[in-house]
């Protein structure tokens, strides 16, 4: 089957228009030594049925990931509604479309997504989304540096290790310093006081933290603000079904990985960066915002705002290096949240909490790294079994410890079987 759409006559016509007698003449400027003399070595072509057969065989070799794997990418139930709505051709695009205002439906969907994210996090303003949780966290740190005019970022070592790596990479290029606050024996962030003494731009915490523990955040904001720093919290959006939203305990910026909201884990992507802030920081936010407005006839319409600070307009002076959003993943999140509703999201969060803690109670406390810490859906276990995330990859001192994740999808028999296997 040949998918090259032009015929020999078409090619002759194009060559004539270019004034080249042949394809070889067209390419004569390409040096002889860099030319590919023969095609790549590939198996013979297959017919479509043969190809489908081969792909089916290959995919049959896949095994499902451990149901207890988490650490930033989670397996939550995705209602069928999500797939059907985001699959509609009007919506099915990875980015905000060009000529965005011509696509009112997508802009409205993004607007709804932003509104839900604000309600979920308790913040005033959310953007149309970032690439993923890691880049959203970095952008929050950069926002804090712009707002405060300071060059030091303080981050808890109980923040996702991959996010901290991305933060260090970005910070190096921007000539910013990153300081880490060690985690305590209880699996919580240590005292942030000392690290913020020299004038930090922000303090970054994760809630629940990477070990799955719930940080006591209530008193923190005042201490951080009294030093002139901003308070950045990286959230698991599912946990906000029951945990206090960051806006309620004084966070200035809430970021997070939004994959859990209606997006499958796949092989770790595509992901969705959540970004919401207090109103006073709206002009320092990266990315774009879909806004509600009225058209010339006074009818409700939607538009992209704050684009003027993005790369395609401000070039090297842009606020950040993002110049679009994760439109499809954000749409999935919006459809997920509206399908679940407030009660549904709360139920999912409660099931995670209850099932994870059911499993944790069945494990003897000497096998738990932080037996005293309250956990949401993850906790750290000592085991030789290959289950969950091997923490020694990120924390060399935690050899033999693994991060176990339990979502609402875990069945009682899976949990009981795991207890036996451990």
């Amino acid at each position, binding site marked *: 089957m040949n998918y090259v759409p032009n015929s020999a006559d078409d090619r002759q016509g194009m060559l004539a228009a270019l004034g080249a007698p042949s394809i070889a003449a067209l390419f004569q400027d390409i040096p002889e030594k860099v030319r590919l003399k023969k095609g790549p070595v590939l198996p013979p072509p297959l017919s479509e049925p043969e190809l489908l057969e081969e792909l089916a065989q290959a995919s049959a070799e896949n095994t499902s990931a451990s149901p207890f794997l988490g650490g930033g990418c989670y397996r939550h139930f995705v209602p069928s509604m999500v797939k059907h709505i985001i699959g509609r051709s009007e919506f099915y695009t990875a980015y905000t479309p060009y000529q965005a205002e011509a696509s009112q439906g997508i802009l409205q969907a993004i607007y709804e997504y932003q509104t839900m994210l604000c309600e979920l996090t308790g913040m005033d303003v959310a953007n149309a989304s970032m690439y993923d949780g890691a880049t959203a966290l970095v952008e929050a740190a950069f926002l804090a540096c712009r707002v405060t*005019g300071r060059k030091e970022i303080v981050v808890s070592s109980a923040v996702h290790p991959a996010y901290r790596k991305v933060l260090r990479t970005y910070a190096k290029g921007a000539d910013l310093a990153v300081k880490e606050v060690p985690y305590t024996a209880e699996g919580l962030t240590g005292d942030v006081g000392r690290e913020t003494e020299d004038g930090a731009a922000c303090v970054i915490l994760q809630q629940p933290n990477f070990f799955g523990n719930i940080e006591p955040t209530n008193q923190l904001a005042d201490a951080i603000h009294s030093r002139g720093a901003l308070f950045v919290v990286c959230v698991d959006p599912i946990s906000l079904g029951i945990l206090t939203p960051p806006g309620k305990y004084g966070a200035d910026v809430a970021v997070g990985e939004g994959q859990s909201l209606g997006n499958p884990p796949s092989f770790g992507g595509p992901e969705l960066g959540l970004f919401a802030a207090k109103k006073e920081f709206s*002009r320092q936010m990266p990315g774009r915002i879909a806004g509600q407005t009225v058209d010339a006839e006074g009818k409700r319409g939607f538009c992209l705002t704050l684009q*003027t*600070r993005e790369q395609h*307009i*401000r070039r090297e*002076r842009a606020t950040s290096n993002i110049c679009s959003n994760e439109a499809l993943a954000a749409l999935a999140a919006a459809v997920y949240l509206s399908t679940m509703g407030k009660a549904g999201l709360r139920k999912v969060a409660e099931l995670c909490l209850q099932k994870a803690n059911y499993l944790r109670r069945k494990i003897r406390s000497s096998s738990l790294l932080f037996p005293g810490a309250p956990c949401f859906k993850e906790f750290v276990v000592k085991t030789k079994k290959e289950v969950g995330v091997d923490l020694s990859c990120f924390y060399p001192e935690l050899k033999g410890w693994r991060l176990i994740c339990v979502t609402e999808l875990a069945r009682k028999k899976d949990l009981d079987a795991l207890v036996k296997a451990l």
Partner: protein
Amino acid sequence: MSELSFPENLKYSKEHEWVKAEGNIATVGVSAYAQDQLGDVVYVELPKEGKELKAMEEMGVVESVKSVSSIYCPIAGKVIEINSALNNQPQLVNEDPYGKGWMIKVEMSGAQDLSPLLSAADYKKLLEK
């Protein structure tokens, strides 16, 4: 362009800011030409009071419905006052660029050579090019 005014008592930069020097205090804003080119100004971001600026250092940004442009401080010195009225009424930059639309007052550091700045006549010539 003929309808835009360029007061004779001000100095102008090639980046379209104006400066009014009185003793060691200078007031800075953007010219009528700049506001006309920008279109409706929706937001003005100014430096913090107390900030030391070098000559032609970026002092903030002006955001209009179609673009965001950097603004530069034509003279070196310390920012002693900013026009906080622009927070809520950024349109003053369009309505009265040399009056209520002023942006910052700078305490000039030492005797400054203002000769690189343009007179109203020279600035008009620059714009006509």
